[in-house]
């Protein structure tokens, strides 16, 4: 009971925050709704970014995967999350610059703007838009799968499908209230609660057993990477780190930044936020050391929390974990909205755009829910599946920055072939010498992009990185 009361109070508080976020910003401009008129400074940008980067996949999925797959399995997850920031420090200011130049809200807008005068620009825009939406479904699935486990901590004993629909409704509510400003403000509460949840649960495990005992009693599990593990880990770290900011919601959050310098300043501190991971590793090893059998290995984090914490503290943990899932669902919906209204149906009247966007968001949430219920999978595996598709955008984005002769049709062909290879190799379990499937597909993608562009090569567009930084407009 105490668990439910604390949980309900904190969720209510998050809704109040969402309402407050709207105050003073009554603009109905679509750009304000989706990228907050590019007004966010480092503080909000930091929280919005880490708020959506560290989703429920981190708090629930990461310890779950260590528990299920053994100690060293967590290494690739840490590695790609970490390496993403140094990559982003150099790449993101350029993406932001292109965004500013082309007045972009979505990642597809970058392609639309850059190739607007070229044949095939529209084809590329549609290719990016559709594959972005499709590969967001596993990301939605991660949130719903995690939410079922987190909300399970409330001990309500109700059908997971009901929990999921409840969660989807809440996520929808945040964005209806105030667009991207709601997730940014709620993110502050969510981040505080999530850190508290992780530290409390990790601390509880540490109070039960000395650190060295936790890692000793779990020592039956392998802490050594085999040669195939190494190939998988190294290729996955590299592949997912470079794809990090190709995730449409990450790109979109990036566009909320005030300036290139804001982005650099923010990214410098991002790796420090990862100090929550040691606590998650402790929780996973603690559960491993208990040698108790869990019906759902993914539930390792909540199993420890439920087992060790008093009811009201558990309420805080459930709220923290749930908010991290809800916030990301809100962010996903906010990423899909403009992909549909601007890129898919940019040519139809605004009223119809809005209806179409809402319909696709509902469709997306529905597809994620159905996939969660009929094809449950390890959360970390689902994360990797999303990257199979998302990282395929990177060669195209780099072309916008640096490649004068890039041809939009060649970029589109590369993305499509990359997606098809990733998915078919994954489904058919084609051996790739233990390398990340997406990385293998990416090499083919790059070959098609470069080969196709050089063969087609006619009119050229000046790459963004060679145009110099964008000066602020007067009065900005």
């Amino acid at each position, binding site marked *: 009971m105490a668990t439910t009361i604390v949980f309900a109070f904190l969720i209510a508080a998050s809704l109040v925050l969402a309402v407050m976020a709207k105050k003073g910003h009554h603009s109905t401009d679509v750009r304000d709704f989706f990228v907050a008129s590019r007004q966010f400074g480092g503080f909000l940008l930091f929280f919005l970014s880490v708020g959506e980067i560290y989703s429920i996949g981190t708090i629930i999925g990461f310890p779950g995967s260590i528990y299920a797959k053994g100690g060293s399995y967590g290494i690739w997850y*840490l590695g790609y999350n*970490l*390496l993403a920031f140094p990559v982003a420090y*150099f790449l993101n200011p350029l993406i932001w610059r292109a965004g500013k130049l082309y007045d972009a809200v979505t990642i597809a807008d970058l392609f639309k703007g850059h190739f607007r005068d070229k044949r095939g620009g529209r084809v590329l825009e549609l290719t990016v838009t559709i594959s972005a939406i499709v590969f967001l479904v596993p990301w939605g699935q991660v949130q719903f799968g995690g939410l079922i486990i987190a909300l399970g901590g409330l001990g309500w004993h109700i059908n997971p499908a009901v929990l999921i629909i409840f969660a989807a409704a809440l996520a929808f509510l945040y964005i209806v209230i105030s667009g991207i400003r709601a997730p940014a403000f709620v993110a502050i509460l969510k981040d505080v609660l999530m850190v508290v949840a992780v530290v409390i649960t990790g601390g509880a495990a540490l109070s039960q057993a000395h*650190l060295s005992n936790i*890692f000793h009693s779990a020592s039956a599990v392998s802490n050594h*990477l085999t040669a195939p593990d190494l190939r998988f880990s190294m290729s996955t770290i590299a592949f997912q780190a470079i794809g990090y900011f190709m995730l449409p919601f990450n790109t979109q959050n990036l566009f909320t930044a005030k300036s290139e310098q804001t982005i650099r300043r923010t990214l410098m501190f991002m790796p420090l936020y*990862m100090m929550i*991971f040691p606590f998650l*590793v402790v929780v996973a090893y603690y559960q491993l050391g208990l040698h108790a059998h869990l019906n759902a290995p993914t539930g390792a984090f909540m199993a420890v929390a439920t087992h060790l914490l008093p009811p009201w503290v558990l309420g805080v943990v459930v709220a923290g974990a749930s908010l991290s899932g809800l916030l990301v669902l809100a962010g996903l919906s906010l990423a899909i909205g403009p992909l549909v209204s601007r890129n898919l149906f940019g040519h139809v009247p605004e009223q119809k755009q809005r209806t179409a966007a809402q319909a696709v968001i509902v469709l997306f949430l529905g597809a994620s829910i159905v996939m969660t219920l009929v094809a449950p999978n390890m959360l970390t595996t689902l994360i990797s599946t999303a990257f199979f598709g998302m990282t395929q955008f990177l060669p195209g984005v780099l072309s916008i920055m640096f490649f004068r002769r890039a041809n939009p049709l060649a970029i589109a062909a590369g993305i499509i072939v990359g997606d098809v290879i990733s998915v078919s190799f994954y489904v058919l379990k084609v051996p790739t010498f233990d390398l990340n499937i997406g990385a293998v597909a990416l090499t083919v993608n790059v070959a098609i992009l470069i080969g196709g562009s050089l063969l087609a090569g006619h009119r050229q567009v000046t790459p963004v990185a060679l145009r110099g930084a964008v000066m602020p407009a007067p009065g900005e």
Partner: protein
Amino acid sequence: MLRVFVGLGIPLIAIVAMLPVVNEVTFTVFNIPFLYLWMFSWFILSSVCLGICWLCFDRHRAEY
């Protein structure tokens, strides 16, 4: 070039290229496997690398 090496090259070498080497180290603290100790320390060291980049190269860029 030095800027990219400090900010991206060093973390890349540490996090990806060094993995096979780090994997062979059996040293532990409180029984925590060295692979984890290594990754944890790079949470801070990556930030330091980017901090150096910022202070030495990027701090004085115009505020666009």
